[in-house]
């Protein structure tokens, strides 16, 4: 009995040791990123190189500079707006797709599903040219909300795939019961399927938020009217200039700020997140 307990403690100790070691190595680049954001612009190449800033030389001037500029706040709000709308709309349309595909099995829905999934293998970058022509035709250029339909379309395959698994897993009895009660398709979807699939929709939404939050090539292609009309990734790239003189301090400060919302969302939702995946597309 004693040896068994000992083995258990030993195994837990090994786990914590390995995890701590791994996590420290893992976090090094992040720590370095934060450390750079707390140093003046020219300090990256000082000798000897430093991982942490000199204790006396920590400065918040980079953050002050960024927070002083109204346009970055507007860029930030733009990103929030686009990401939130993308997440909301994608949750609605892909859960509807997933519901129909997952609950009404037929040749047609199977084919539809295969078709949606297969588009994931086409690289998005080349599509910029035909998509731009399309955006122009619909007047979606130079409008912040014009990004949303494209982002929603991009995340549909992955979201539908993840939520579909969950829809399939809803016990038949529950749905049958609703049918017998005379519920319509809409009712089953809104009253039964949606609430049950909520964790899956939520966890997919976290991935979708990140996709929209980070997207750069398309946004930079269609938004050109003013610096207020930009998303955060474009603002970050703006610190690079023609002659390769990067303003390191500002760049890293803005990036650290840019990460904060995503980290907060993950911390708040992470429990939910795993649950949603567990019962969803990720099946054992």
């Amino acid at each position, binding site marked *: 009995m004693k040896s068994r307990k000992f083995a258990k403690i030993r195994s837990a100790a090994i786990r914590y040791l390995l995890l701590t070691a791994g996590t420290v190595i893992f976090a090094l680049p992040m720590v370095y990123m934060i450390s750079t954001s707390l140093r003046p612009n020219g300090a990256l190449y000082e000798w000897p190189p430093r991982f942490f800033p000199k204790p006396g030389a920590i400065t918040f001037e980079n953050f002050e500079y960024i927070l002083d500029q109204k346009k970055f706040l507007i860029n930030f709000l733009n990103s929030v707006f686009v990401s939130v709308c993308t997440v909301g709309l994608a949750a609605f349309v892909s859960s509807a797709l997933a519901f129909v595909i997952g609950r009404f099995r037929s040749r047609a829905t199977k084919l539809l599903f295969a078709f949606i999934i297969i588009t994931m293998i086409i690289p998005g970058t080349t599509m910029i040219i035909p998509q731009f022509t399309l955006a122009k035709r619909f007047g979606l250029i130079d409008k912040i909300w014009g990004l949303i339909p494209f982002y929603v379309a991009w995340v549909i395959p992955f979201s539908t795939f993840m939520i579909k698994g969950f829809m399939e897993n809803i016990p038949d009895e529950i749905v049958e019961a609703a049918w017998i009660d005379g519920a319509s398709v809409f009712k089953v979807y809104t009253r039964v399927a949606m609430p049950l699939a909520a964790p899956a929709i939520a966890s997919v939404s976290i991935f979708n938020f990140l996709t929209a939050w980070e997207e750069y090539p398309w946004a930079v292609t269609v938004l050109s009217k003013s610096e207020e009309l930009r998303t955060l990734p474009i603002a970050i790239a703006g610190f690079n200039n023609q002659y390769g003189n990067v303003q390191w301090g500002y760049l890293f400060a803005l990036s650290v700020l840019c*990460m904060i919302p995503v980290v907060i969302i993950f911390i708040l939702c*992470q429990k939910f997140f795993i*649950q949603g*995946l*567990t019962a969803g597309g990720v099946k054992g």
Partner: protein
Amino acid sequence: MITRSRMNRAQIIALLAPGLIVFGLFTVYPIIRLFMMSFCGIKLETMFVQPFCGLDNYVHVFSDPTFGTSFVNSIVYTAVTVPAQMALGLFIAILLNGIRRFSVTFRVINYLPVVTSWVIASLVFKYVFQTEGLLNYFLRTVIKVIPKNVKWLNERWGGMTVAMILGTWKGIGWNMVIFLAALQQVPKDLYEAADIDGCGAWKKFTHVTLPAIRGTILFAMVELTIGGFNVFTSIQMITGGKPADQTQTLLTWMYKNAFSLDHDIGYAAALSFVMAFTLGLLAVVQFRMMRSRDV
């Protein structure tokens, strides 16, 4: 009864419509246009004149030596980063699955790289691996194991290796989350049965865990393979294709052709479909592989 089923059909269509319209318009239609472009001699300069040129663009792709280089680079990148991310992600997930305290802290820290922007992560890695960078300083001056600075980024495989380390680092968190979800679904009694049979940890892993999460492994593998072929920002920022286009990957090479060399959209479109075809083929192989192991 008839009216009801008709009503249901109408409602099903109404449910599908928003998704299918958005998807059809903004994804499918551009893909079709792109496919047509891959058979046309089309450059940005001559956007409105699109003479049909048959398979010329595809012939051009396969006779271009830099396509060969970038194809090999993409394959190697994928072949290294996908198993590495999955193995490490799974390992961390297994460790995390067995502990109670600080589980959330570890999860969050390990997930942070996933939410870091590619641009910033690339800049950090580039700085660390520079010839005069932090790593060489550490190896040469602090622990004195190398006599001379190693030129990590100056040649093809060095540059690719750094991009692969970055790709792996950034992907582990995603795998950890996915595998953690899968592990929580493995029925506990399977482990208990294995315990009774006197299986060790390794045997439990190979005989219980792996078969139980096979579906997730396949899912992650296909997803990550697509991601691996889409590597772009990190290469662009770390090596920019240097030296002499030897570290180009399929996407960076396609982008360079479309927007900076001769604006050959037809060529870029053809390259995209060659890449899509390769990915499709790989997905089929991966499905087969996992299924045959099943039997």
